[in-house]
């Protein structure tokens, strides 16, 4: 009986994972294909990686994406951290639910709408005050910051609401002023959450195609945009190589971020548990 069930469970597992990962696996495998045709295996080679690194357009796009990713993740951290702090420490006030809903809204907003509204905003701003002059890296960075900040805020808020407020009170009691408490006590304690938030934002920014397409200008092609446009002209095995690299980068980042969250969770529960004596 239990044997039967486990067979069923195993096949469900295999099917599920196959459904999710076979396409990705194929991309990775075909990135090492010798031949020019994407769908026909012609032997092992790393030549597409070599040709990828000599493709200037692709390298420029990757460089753009990295720069936008670092910038917007950093800005999102600067904006999202105070937001998370306010949501968990400000206490109750009228319209609190509305505020927290508004902070989380970019997470569920369709990207097309976010992209379109931001485009309208940038165009209007340019006509009114002349900034941002045209669209390019800076507008993409701003656009990515808006939705990444929401992710950071949520991560920080959940970390803070699990934190014992008496630790901050103890610092105040011992003579530290609120601003100092934030930098000396609160910040170090939520540091893992901040790093995780940053990595998450960076990854999201690196992935984004739709919003970037709306607010990009000439010379600010990001990697996903480049990939998308070159695929429309026909898939080259180079793209497979690129995809493999992206998958690798993103997976490493996600794994680091989750490990950090896990570690901070564990430290928190260990600090809370308290009484077990240690040698």
């Amino acid at each position, binding site marked *: 009986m239990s044997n039967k069930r486990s067979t069923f469970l195993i096949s469900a597992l295999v099917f599920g994972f196959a459904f999710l990962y076979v396409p990705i696996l194929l991309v990775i495998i075909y990135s090492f294909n010798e031949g020019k045709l994407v769908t026909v295996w012609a032997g092992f080679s790393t030549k597409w990686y070599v040709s990828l690194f000599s493709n200037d357009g692709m390298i420029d796009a990757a460089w753009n994406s990295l720069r936008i990713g670092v910038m917007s993740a950093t800005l999102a951290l600067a904006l999202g951290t105070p937001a998370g702090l306010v949501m968990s420490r400000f206490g109750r006030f009228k319209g609190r639910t509305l505020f927290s809903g508004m902070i989380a809204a970019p997470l569920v907003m369709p990207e097309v709408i976010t992209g379109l509204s931001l485009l309208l905003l940038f165009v209007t701003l340019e006509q009114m005050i002349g900034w941002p002059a045209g669209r390019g890296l800076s507008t993409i960075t701003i656009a990515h910051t808006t939705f990444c900040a929401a992710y950071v805020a949520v991560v920080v808020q959940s970390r803070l609401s699990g934190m*014992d407020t*008496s*630790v901050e*009170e*103890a*610092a*105040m*009691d*011992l*003579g*530290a*002023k609120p601003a*100092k408490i934030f930098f000396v*006590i609160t910040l*170090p*304690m939520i540091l893992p959450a901040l790093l995780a938030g940053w990595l998450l934002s960076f990854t999201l920014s690196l992935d984004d195609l739709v919003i970037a397409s709306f607010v990009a200008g000439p010379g600010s092609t990001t990697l996903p945009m480049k990939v998308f446009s070159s695929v429309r002209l026909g898939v080259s095995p180079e793209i497979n190589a690129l995809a493999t690299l992206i998958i690798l980068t993103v997976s490493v980042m996600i794994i680091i971020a989750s490990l950090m969250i896990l570690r901070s969770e564990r*430290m928190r529960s*260990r*600090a809370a548990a*308290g*009484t*077990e*004596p*240690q040698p």
Partner: protein
Amino acid sequence: MLVSEAVLEDAHEDVHKTQPWNNPDAVPYIRFENVTKKFGDFYAVDDVSLDIYRHELFALLGGSGCGKTTLLRMLAGFEEPTSGKIFIDGVDMAGVPAYERPTNMMFQSYALFPHMSVEQNVAFGLVQDGVSRSEIKQQVAEMLGLVQMSKFAKRKPHQLSGGQRQRVALARSLIKRPKVLLLDEPLGALDKKLREQTQFELVNIQEKVGTTFVMVTHDQEEAMTMASRIAVMNEGVINQIGTPFELYEYPNSRYTANFLGQVNLIEGVLVDDDEKYAVIKSEEAGCDIYIDHAVQGHQGMTFWAALRPERLRITKEAPEESKYNCVAGKVEEIGYLGGISTYHVRLASGLRIKVTEPNSTRQIEPRYTWEDNVWVSWEAGAASVLNK
């Protein structure tokens, strides 16, 4: 006997030194003046006035939600009173933020900084004050010595046991030599054995440093062991203030009597009173209760006689003098605790009386067993009479 006046005066002065609350000229160190704290419509603290004197170890005792922690947090500056004033050493604390108050607090959860070592935790208060490095180093070492944690200076809080964390928290809150040390359930997170041991240690440390301690606790045993005086709180009001002795022997209400130790409360009506004695007729007990002192009240008023279980005697035969203070019943429950035994005796009226007897000699078998018919009696001075 003749006692010279000088000796009397000396004795008087001594009392005033050790019991400043009995000295009308003593100036209180901490003063709550009609302090009220409301959270929305809820009165957490309701018009509390309280004086605490220098070098006291004062305990606020009460069940959860009685307002004791709110009172402590107002002293620390984490909450502002809705109305009323708080003075520490003569200074009005209104508007003084927590980081400028001459108080330090030891938190129930200890609230150690998890990312700092024991040493850094203890030094934190001095670092905020801009004390020089060498000075900090010396003071931290001294303080860690006082709480016997020198060996663990480099450890992080999560590498310590509960008792060790408690010591670090104590050292951290004492290092700034606060005028008042506030302790929120200081021993609440320790297990029973460690708690009893730490109670005395804490009292010793208090005597050594001479700081005024104000402590919040729900554990009456802890309060009685440690405190010079106790305020019993209930629903935001102080029920009674006194030394452990006063509260136990002369409770002013059924609440206090019940909260400190165990008590049998017997309801009755005053039927006879005089300057030297009073008699309360109790239907519940089925006997008259003779009290060897006068009672404030008039005949026909309802009173409760509070009888501590250890002041009752349990016998198989009716005592010779059985007119007063003597009831018959059946043993319903027996609790053998080694040093003492507890008996629950059910009276004819259905009232259950708790009696404890010391097991001062080694016995082959228990003296009384279930369903035994027994008599419970007490001295005229055993009962305290309560009217609320």
